[in-house]
């Protein structure tokens, strides 16, 4: 039990990731696949954010005109959360958004061509065209 509670953030990300993974693989509707992909990526982002955080810590910025105490705490690592994962995830989010954009564009193209987004129906149409 402790094993689960203590590392709840990992469990959450794993569960989310598996949901997304399932959607990406198993769903036949392209948009659902895409949603699954987003969940998948979000899970990873959550994972990264969670590894950066510390209990009772604050953002790593020294206030302007901070005196004695604050300055000393500047070097006290325990008081500051690790900003790096957040920064990484910022980039990852950018990547995610652009992936989403491209994927949406593709889906629109597909829809224009086949008037459906169900993969099996699309394949059906393709096959019929092959035979034609």
């Amino acid at each position, binding site marked *: 039990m402790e094993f689960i509670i203590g590392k709840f953030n990992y469990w959450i990300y794993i569960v989310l990731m598996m949901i997304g993974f399932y959607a990406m693989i198993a769903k036949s509707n392209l948009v659902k696949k895409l949603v699954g992909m987003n969940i998948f990526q979000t899970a990873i982002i959550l994972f990264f954010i969670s590894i950066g955080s510390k209990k009772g810590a604050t*953002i790593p*910025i020294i206030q302007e005109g901070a005196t004695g105490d604050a300055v000393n705490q500047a070097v006290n690592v325990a008081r500051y959360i690790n900003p790096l994962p957040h920064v990484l995830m*910022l980039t990852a*989010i*950018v990547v995610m*958004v*652009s992936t*989403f*954009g*491209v994927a*949406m*564009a593709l889906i*629109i*193209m597909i829809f*224009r061509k086949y008037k459906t987004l169900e993969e099996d129906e699309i394949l059906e149409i393709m096959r019929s065209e092959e035979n034609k």
Partner: protein
Amino acid sequence: MIGRFDNVIIQTISRLLIPPIQLFALYVIAHGHYSPGGGFQGGCILGASFILMVIAYDIKEAKRMMSEKVNTIFSSLGVIIYSGIGVVCLILSANYLDYGILNKIMPVTIAEARALGIFGVEVGVGITVMAVMVSIFLNLASGGEHEEAEE
């Protein structure tokens, strides 16, 4: 897909909301380098304000204010600003994005030069993000008639 529908309440509210939103976006961009926020977040907010307008009015309205061409130019302009600053550093015989060197061409200390350099980069990023957000949205909303711009 999003057709025009005149709804006074929505239009008025969005009229009222959009300026402060954009102002806030600028604030976020400008303060990115010493408080939470930055080019990307600011850009997102800025883009969101345009998107709100598209929702409130319609695509033609939005296109009138920000045409596809302008959009494309913005999206690449931002990147060029960002990498341009880096190249300036190169020209000043420092490493890429080593803003400290900028004090050679500006009457400021190295620290300030760093601040200004990163600020310039934030602005560039903001512009690009805003433009791309808008173009992605328009692209989807208009079902692809609005040519896709690649991130």
